[in-house]
Each structure stands twice: as C-alpha cells, then as structure tokens.
C-alpha cells in the first residue's frame, strides 16, 4: 500500500530529522517540518474535528451521550460488516477471472491463406521402381497368399521374375486372431494392440490382417520406402510443370515467387502457394471465384505406385501462412475430371491468456521444443512432443516428423527394433501416457477457414477437345485418359465478412474499483483518503506514545544526573500548559524566543480548541457557515 510506504519514509525522516535539522529549524518562522500533538486528547480531538469518515465522527464525538455512542457503534459496525461482505463478493468475482465472449463481425480485405496442393503420389513409379521392386514383389506375393489376388496383370512382367520366396521377409503379413493368445504374454499383446490401432487392416469375420513387429527381428516393410527420402526428391522437383498446368490468382498469373515446394512422404510433391516466403502476400479485396486462386492440375495415374497410392486426384489444404501443412489433418481430396470450387469463410478465435485461460501466446512457455520452425499450434507441439519422446525412448527420429538437432532418422539397419518401439510409443501416446496432450496448450489466437465445395464436370463435352489439345501441346505431353487426367480447382473467399470470437475480461480493474467505490460510498461514505487519515492517526498515536515513553524515560533516568538539554526540554514542554504543537526542537526555540517566533496564525487556534472542548457538531459548523453567509446579506 503506497500510503504505508510513505508513512514508513515519513517515520524515517522524522527519526532522523530532529538531530541534524535542529540547528536549521529556528530560521523557519512558520512551522516545523513535522509536528505532533501534545497528548492523546489533542490528537483525538483533532482527528474528531477533521476526519471525513462518516459514523466515526459520531462514534467518537458523541462521547457525552452513552446511548448515542452505543447506537452509533452498532450502526458503524453493521455498515462495516456489510461493506466488507460486499467487498469479499466483489474480490471473489474479480479473482475468479471471468471472461465474456465477444463476437465481432468484421469485414475487411483479407489475406489469402496459404494453399498446399499435393500430388497424392509420393514418387514417380518409374523412377523408384528399382528400389521398390523387391518390396512390391513381396507385397504381391502376400496378397496372393492371403486373398488369392493375382496381380501380375496389373504390374506387368517383372524383369527379374519371381524369385523363390522360401526365405520370408521379416514381419510377414499374416492373419491374426483378434483375441490374442494368452501364451504370447507381453509381446503378443502389444502386437495385437498395435494391429488394432495403426495397421492397415482388413476385417474378415474375426480375423485381422496385420504384420507383427517384434523387437528382436529386423524391421522393414512399408516404411522402408519412407526412409529413403533423398532418392527421388531431385526428380520430383521438375514435376511442377507436369502437375500444375495453369495457375491464376485474382486474374493474374502466378509466378515462381508465389509458391514453394516440399516433399511429403505420403502425399508426394506438395506445392504451397502464397506461403511464408511469398514476397508479397495475396490479398482478396473482393469475394468470388474471379478473385481467388484458380489452378488446373494434372492427375494422371500412370506413374502412381500401385500398392501405395490407392486414390487418385490431388489433395489440397488451406492453412495459415506461418503454419505447417499437415496434409493428413485437414486435407481435401480433389476428384479428377472435375472442377472443384472451394469457398472459404474465415473465422478467428482469440483467447485471453494469463489468468483468464490456459493458452499460450507463442508457445515459448510450453516445455516442448518446436521442431517445425513455424508458428506455434497445438498440432506442431504434439508432433514435436512425440518426436522428442521417440528419440528419448527409441534412440532415433520418426521419419514423418522433422529432425531435431543431433539425432538421426530411424533406419532398420542401425536401429533394429525401432518399429516395435514406435508402435509401443504410439500406443502410449494415444492413451496420453506421454503427457503430450497436457503439455501442449492451446494457442491463444487461432484462425480457421471453413471450406465448402461445389463440383461441376470439367471440361465439358463441347470444350474438351480444344482444352485437352491445348494443354497437351503447351506442356509437350499427351493426356491419355482425357477427363481423368485433369482437374480444376478454384479456391476463393465466399464473403469478406469474418467472425472473430474473442474473449474479454468481464470484470476489469476499473469496474472493480468503481464497484468498490460505490459500495464504500454507500455504506461508509469514506474514501481512500479517509484510510490515509486513519493511517496517519495510527502513525501519530505510535509516535506520540514513543515520544511520551522517551520523555518519561529521560525524566526518570537522565534529568537528575545531567541537567543540560534534557532537563531544559522536559521542563519547557510541560510548562506550556495549553496544547501546542509538540516539536522537540521548536520547543527549545519557543523557550528561547517566546515572543516573535509565535506567529499570530499559530497562536490563534489554541483558544479555539479550548473553547471547542465539547466537539462542535457538523450542524453547528454548518450553522456557522450559514451564519457567515447570512451575515453578508444585509
């Protein structure tokens, strides 16, 4: 409390004041630096006359009437209790940090979000064929064994033909009974659970298909393909021309600076338009198809990896500029031979951080390192958290998530049992044993885009001739299966209105203070300054007590021994019979210079105090004023 501090300083000054300031004081003729009342009676009288606390004045000053005093004491106490009860309620409300939801409907020109489009085909089959050949062969064989599916006609003749499969690969695909055999103990159980959760599975009565991963065996299987990300990245670079035929935004062509490329292990080559590194961000100043992004895509299926990509088309995702594109979280698949018009509607959510809610502004206080070098989102955090745990427990990093410092991606050649470890970790992760979901807090501001799509057939029968011809001619490439080979995509804002859901504190400091003041005024009629008055009174009381004790102490022990100054002081102070300002140094001054030092202003009050022995009621004071006014009239 500020006043308390002030008082503390005061006391210090006061304590120091008398000794060094004593010689200077006599030069000041009017009043001392600080003065104290002579006795408790004076003090109380002074307080009683000048206090602004309602009720208190009645309580103290109506001391001649016991009945009145008791009455006022009860009233005062009641008001006091009421006030503090109300204060308690108000503080309780404030410190529960309530928030009120605001919905703002804004309309503004909008920054076009980043749009990421993926080919849905990780690698060109022709280029990775050699590397995957053995895997394909095994998979085919398994398919044949399990389902009697003869795939030789789909994949054509293999150059090497079918090798003998007497020596099986590790982790063979096999049928597993759903109720795990009890003898398998821990290993079998974990395998069964992982099968349920994560593996490609085929339901057929009570059988499930899966592969078993055990920590003794070497692991391979599908993930082998993903652990070789650098093999065909270079060949993927030049796919842009073959993937996107035309790109327009706001009726202007896109250029090199508008997009960036990355490779996603599942969804293939991805192109982010209007991403973080776009030189000047696209703005939408009008809603509608014409003012959005329009892309013509190639969705040929010739070089898809037959056993990995089971869907055709493209995958598109709309996200904020500084957020990474998690294609499997929020993607939208495009059908080939269609014009897909995706209309967006922006929605923003702002939470109040700090005491008002559990959210984080930029993720700096979340105990998980952000591996994505992008804006904090909950997904980013959860993935980083998983990767962290993966490295801690399995010793290597999961290939789908970014690589932290001094770690390496999992490779079955170095880390034998990473697959087993991964599935175990995945299990713990989804049941939240890792604590990732509790560690990762919600971000305070979230921007989301609501998408809705409309489809129309493209190109139309009448126009397809020239369009196909032109597209093939332009790209030096013949579109074979016509309509399935192309797709068109429009992404645009449906409206520029957007909703912002934001929180605001429903009780602010200002309203809290106002409410406190209202209650205070209502019950007590006092103010903060009245509290300071009380503090001053207490301070004065303490000082006077101290001085009195000191004086008594001095008079008892010091005055007989040493006459000098102490005797003079003690003698002089009681000598002044009428109440005067008690000031140790000024008394010496007054004793030495009695006449001129006392100014008329200072001498005048004492008689007034004396005459006012019975405290003047405010009404009499008011009467005095009014009389002063009325006297002026005639």
């Amino acid at each position, binding site marked *: 409390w500020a006043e308390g501090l002030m008082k503390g300083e005061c006391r210090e000054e006061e304590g120091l004041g008398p000794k060094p300031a004593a010689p200077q004081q006599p030069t000041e003729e009017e009043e001392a630096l600080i003065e104290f009342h002579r006795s408790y009676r004076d003090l109380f009288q002074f307080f009683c006359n000048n206090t602004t606390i309602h009720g208190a004045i009645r309580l103290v000053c109506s001391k001649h009437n016991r009945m009145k005093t008791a009455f006022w004491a009860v009233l005062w106490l009641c008001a006091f209790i009421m006030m503090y009860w109300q204060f308690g309620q108000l503080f309780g409300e404030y410190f529960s940090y309530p928030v009120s939801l*605001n919905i703002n409907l804004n309309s503004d020109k909008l920054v076009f979000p980043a749009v990421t489009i993926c080919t849905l085909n990780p690698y060109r089959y022709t280029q990775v064929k050699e590397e995957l050949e053995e895997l394909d062969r095994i998979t085919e064989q398994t398919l044949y064994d399990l389902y009697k599916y003869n795939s030789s006609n789909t994949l054509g003749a293999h150059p090497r033909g079918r090798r003998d499969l007497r020596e099986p690969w590790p982790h063979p695909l096999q049928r597993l009974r759903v109720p795990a055999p009890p003898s398998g103990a821990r290993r079998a159980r974990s395998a069964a659970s992982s099968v349920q959760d994560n593996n490609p599975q085929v339901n057929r009565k009570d059988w499930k298909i899966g592969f078993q991963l055990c920590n003794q065996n070497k692991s391979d299987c599908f993930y082998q393909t993903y652990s070789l990300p650098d093999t065909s990245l270079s060949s993927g670079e030049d796919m842009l021309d073959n993937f996107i035929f035309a*790109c327009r935004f706001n009726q202007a062509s896109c250029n090199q600076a508008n997009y960036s490329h990355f490779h996603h292990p599942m969804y293939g080559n991805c192109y982010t338009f209007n991403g973080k590194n776009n030189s000047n961000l696209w703005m939408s100043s009008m809603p509608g198809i014409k003012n959005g992004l329009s892309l013509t895509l190639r969705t040929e299926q010739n070089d898809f990896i037959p056993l990995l990509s089971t869907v055709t088309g493209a995958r598109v995702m709309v996200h904020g500029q500084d957020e990474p594109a998690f294609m499997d979280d929020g993607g939208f698949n495009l059908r080939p031979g269609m014009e897909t018009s995706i209309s967006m509607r922006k929605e923003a959510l702002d939470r109040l951080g700090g005491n008002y809610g559990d959210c984080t502004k930029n993720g700096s206080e979340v105990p998980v390192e952000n591996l994505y070098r992008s804006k904090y989102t909950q997904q980013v955090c959860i993935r980083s958290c998983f990767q962290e745990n993966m490295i801690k427990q399995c010793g290597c990093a999961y290939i789908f998530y970014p690589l932290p410092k001094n770690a390496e991606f999992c490779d079955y050649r170095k880390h034998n049992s990473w697959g087993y470890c991964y599935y175990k970790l995945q299990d713990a992760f989804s049941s939240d044993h890792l604590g990732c979901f509790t560690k990762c807090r919600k971000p305070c501001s979230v921007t989301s885009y609501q998408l809705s799509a409309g489809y129309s057939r493209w190109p139309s029968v009448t126009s397809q001739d020239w369009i196909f011809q032109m597209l093939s001619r332009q790209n030096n490439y013949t579109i074979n299966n016509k309509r399935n080979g192309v797709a068109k995509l429009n992404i645009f804002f449906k409206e520029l209105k957007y909703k912002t859901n934001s929180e605001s504190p429903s009780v602010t400091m200002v309203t809290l203070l106002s409410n*406190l003041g209202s209650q205070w005024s209502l019950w007590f009629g006092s103010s903060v300054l009245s509290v300071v008055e009380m503090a001053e009174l207490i301070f004065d009381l303490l000082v006077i007590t101290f001085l009195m004790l000191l004086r008594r102490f001095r008079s008892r022990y010091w005055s007989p021994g040493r006459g000098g100054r102490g005797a003079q002081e003690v003698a002089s102070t009681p000598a002044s019979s009428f109440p005067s300002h008690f000031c140790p140094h000024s008394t010496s001054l007054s004793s030495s210079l009695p006449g001129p030092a006392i100014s008329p202003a200072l001498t005048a009050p004492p008689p007034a105090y004396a005459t006012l022995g019975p405290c003047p009621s405010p009404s009499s004071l008011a009467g005095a004023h009014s009389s002063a006014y009325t006297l002026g009239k005639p």
Partner: protein
Amino acid sequence: MAPGEKIKAKIKKNLPVRGPQAPTIKELMRWYCLNTNTHGCRRIVVSRGRLRRLLWILFTLTAVALIFWQCALLVASFYTVSVSIKVHFQKLDFPAVTICNINPYKYSVVRDLLADLEQETRVALKTLYGFPENTSRKRREAESWSSAWEGTRPKFLRLVPLMVFSQDETSQARDFLTGRKRKFSGRIIHKASDAMHVHASKEVVGFQLCSNDTSHCTLYTFSSGVNAIQEWYKLHYMNIMAQVPLEKKINMSYSAEELLVTCLFDGVSCDARNFTLFHHPMYGNCYTFNNRENETILSTSMGGSEYGLQVILYINEEEYNPFLVSSTGAKVIVHRQDEYPFIEDVGTEIETAMATSIGMHLTESFKLSEPYSQCTEDGSDVPISNIYNAAYSLQICLHSCFQTKMVEKCGCAQYSQPLPPAANYCNYQQHPNWMYCYYELHQAFVREELGCQSVCREACSFKEWTLTTSLAQWPSVVSEKWLLPVLTWDQGQQIKKKLNKTDLAKLLIFYKDLNQRSIMESPANSIEMLLSNFGGQLGLWMSCSVVCVIEIIEVFFIDSLSIITRRQWQKAKEWWARRHAPPSPQGQDNPGLDIDDDLPTFTSALRLPPAPGTQVPGTPPPRYNTLRLERAFSDQLTDTQEPAES
C-alpha cells in the same frame, strides 16, 4: 431616465450579483479546503508540519489524477458491445434459391451471333497450338466457315490481336495473324519472365489492349493458353452480347420448363410457375424459387431432406458454348428474398449425373451501427448509388462503385453488371478502346486505388445460410433404366431427344434442422452504468460527488476568476486615479484591510457562533462583514450602477 434603465436598476438592486467573499485567491482556497466535503482538502489546511501538508497535497493530487485516469478508461470503453447468441426453434422461412445453368445461351441459337468470333478463335487455336480446326463433330460447319473465311477479313483479331511471346525477349512478340515480329513498348502487366510454366517452347500467350492513341498499350499475358483464349473470347463475347436486346437474350436462353424437369417442395409438387425469371448477363436465364413475387414466403415445417426443395435439372451439355464455359453443371445460390444473387461470385456448382444435397443452417446477425461500428443500416448513408434492384449489401456497393467509376472513366458500362441510369453497355462501335479502359480500371480496383473498398461499408444485419454439400451418384445403375425413359416421356414437349444420364442433375436443398442462430449485439454499457461507475470512482478516491464537482467549478473557476479580475480592476482603477489625482484614498484602504482581516475572518468564521464569550474571535465578524459588504458592493456597483449615479 428611460423606463428600461429603471427596471434594470431595480433588478440589480433586488437580485444583487455578488462576487466571492474572499479577498485573495489564497484565502479562497483556504476557505474552500476547510468547507468542502471532498476528502483530503481539509487535511491540507488543518495538518501541521510542512512535510505532513506536502504529503496531503500529494495524496489529494494522486487521488484526483486517479479519478481522471479511471474515468477516462471508463469513457473509452463506453462504446463496447456485448453479444448474445440465441437459438430459436421455429418454423423457418425458406430462403430464395436461384438456379442457373452454367452455360448462358443455347449454343445452337446464339451461334449466328458468334459465328465470326468462333471462327477466329479456332484460327487462333490452330495457329498457336496446331489444334485441328476440323474436329470430327464440327467438320461440316467448319468447312463452310473456312470457305467463308477467305472472303472476310478477321475483325476481332485485328481489334485485339492475340500474341505469342518468347520467354526471353518480352519486348518482341509475334503477331500470329501476320506472322511478323513486332516491337512492343507497352508495359507488361503480368511479368512473363518468371512465369512458372516454363514449357519447352518458352512461349507465353497474351493480348494487347491499347487506348485511343496507340501510344499507351498494355499487354496481358497468360501462363496458360487456355486462360488466354478464354479471356480473349470472353471480351469479345461481352462486346457482342451487349448489343443484343434483353428480350432476345431471354428467348435465346433456357426456359423454366426446360431447365426444371421435376420439382418438389416440402413434399408437395411444384412447377415452373413457382420460379421467377432473373436474367443474369453471364449466366443467362436463372430461376429463383420462393421469390415472394407471386405469393407469401414459403416456409418449411420440418428439417431434413424430405422437406426441402428437390429439383431435377436438365443440363443440355451439347448446347454448351465451348469457349465461354469449360465446365458442365448448374449453379445454385441461396439468398434472402430481397438480396441480389451474386451467382458468379458465390454460387455453388452442381454436377451432372449426381445428386447434390445441400444442407442449410441459418444464422442471423445484427450489428449496432454508429458509434459502435461502421456498418450501415440500409446503405442510404453510403455515397454510392445502388444500381441493383435489391437491398444493400457490401458486394452490391462494391459492384455499383466499380460500375459508376467505369461509366465515369470509360463512358460506358461493363456488361456483367446492371446499367446505371443514363448509360449503356460498352461495345466497339461506340467505345473503341473500352477494353483497355476496363482492364486498367479493374487493375486499379484490385489494388484499391479507386477508393471503393474504403467507401463501402458492410450492412448491419444479414442472414447467412451455411451450406454443407454432399454428393451421391445419381441415378443409380438399376434405377437409371426406368428413370430416364420416364423423364424423357415427361419432357417430351420441350426436349426432342432421349435423356442421357449426364444431361441431368439432381439437387436437394433443405434445412438441416429448424434452429436458427441469432447473433445480436447490444450496448454493453448504458449511460446509467457509466454514471454509477463515475460515482464509484469519485467516491472511492475522494468521496466526492457531483455537488463537489459543481463546488470545484464554482470556486476554482468562477470565484478565482472574479477575484483576479477584481484585483486587476482595482489596479487599473488605482493606476487611473493615480494618473489623474495623485493622492488616492482608496489605494491606502485596500492593502490595510486585507492584512488586517485576512486571518481572523476565515479562521474564526467557522467557530464563531459557539464561542460568543471570547473576545478575540468575537470582534472580527462585524468588521469583516461590513467590509466584505462594502467591498463586494463597491466593486460590483461601481461598474454596474454607473448609469444610476450619472
């Protein structure tokens, strides 16, 4: 003496205006501090000790500052709104639904008008991309055209030539019609140098638009030839269609009976009469269901697809314009009855051979207008005239603004928007360089140089229907066998051919549920709240009230000012008197009186009545009063009663 003067003097006598009692500002302050109800002030005066007094001054000033600060915060946050969301369950009005075929006009009908253009487009395609002019389907017609081609000179390509640019040297272009190289000094709008499609030929297609004097030319390049051709075609198409009268255009487009094969609303059959025609410049004839024109607004009694609008649309794909539209289907838009359907901007496409289910969810929003936000109730306070025959919306304003600017700058109106009064659509005959003008203007609009975006404000209340689209294969293989013949038989009069699966599209529009969400803003603070908060602040810090504030105004402004003026007046008078008559009796009086009566009057005035016995305070009051009276009157009267004396 005039009677007026008399009355004046009488009034002055009976209602005397008196100045403050205190002779000096210091006295006035002292008097104020002792008598005010505001906490803190009294302590400044009655405390003893300079430090104590200083501290009390500090406290009081701090409290005043805090009051001001907090009240400023309260005022600043006065214009905030609180939002309430209500969910009603009720019978909902069905919105207006506008359905258009993507293709505006039947190509067989409109072909006569566009024959030249089509021919030139094909020539351009052939020259640019080696597209065989004689495709299998149109061999006959093409042959007849190519024979006609010899005679006529290409007029469209001459007006706006399509060009091929080589990637490296954009200043040099090959006009493919003449084949000769041209030098271009015009600026290139879309930088072709870093276009992302670096195809083998390293060529970019575009066209050039020039203003009247051919010095200002703008080059539009397209990374894809398809876009270039379409854009080029569209320009000329708009030019041609702008000259066709509206009735003819309506006749060229699809009739309601043709477009709507079956119709079912809320389980009851409906037909083409329930739809009102709305002609859209780019989409031809559109039909609006539930437009309030012929009857009251329809409403649905239940949610779910059974109770909504179900229509089967006939999309005749063979009648499609090959260059203008490249996709097949219909467009649908859900809007308020008095709203203009911006089908080209926000329509949802419907695919052929598919059943498209659109579930709706209604959200109503009401905003508070000035001073809470910038929205407008009905657009009357927006300085843009609404050229659409519909209720105000932001988009209408933007389009109207652009169209008005277009008429201003280019002298004619753009084809795809309604005509403002006293203007006509652009065409070559009257406005040879309107295309250049349009493109320039559109670029400026997108860059927000026209100021439309800043002038137009959003509407305060709007309804929006959130749509959820889902698709299903329709008709199914087994139902196709009976469905198509039945529909063909039904439509025997309109359609002279057997219906195909890809000619039809099914559309279902329905309310997902009958709850309506209303988002309503209301003022978060009322004036009473503000006042009570003010009162709270004043009470908390200083226990002050409005009376105190009035007191402060009285003492600090009126009284202080009058004291100062009085002092100045006295000085001036003194100076005047000294100048005329050096020995002035008044000049001696005043200082003496001030010194004598200062302290006794004000310190004792308070405690005067209860202490009649003592002689020290007892003496001053009469002196003070008489003095004050004299002074007050002498001061006031010297200047006010001058005419009476004279």
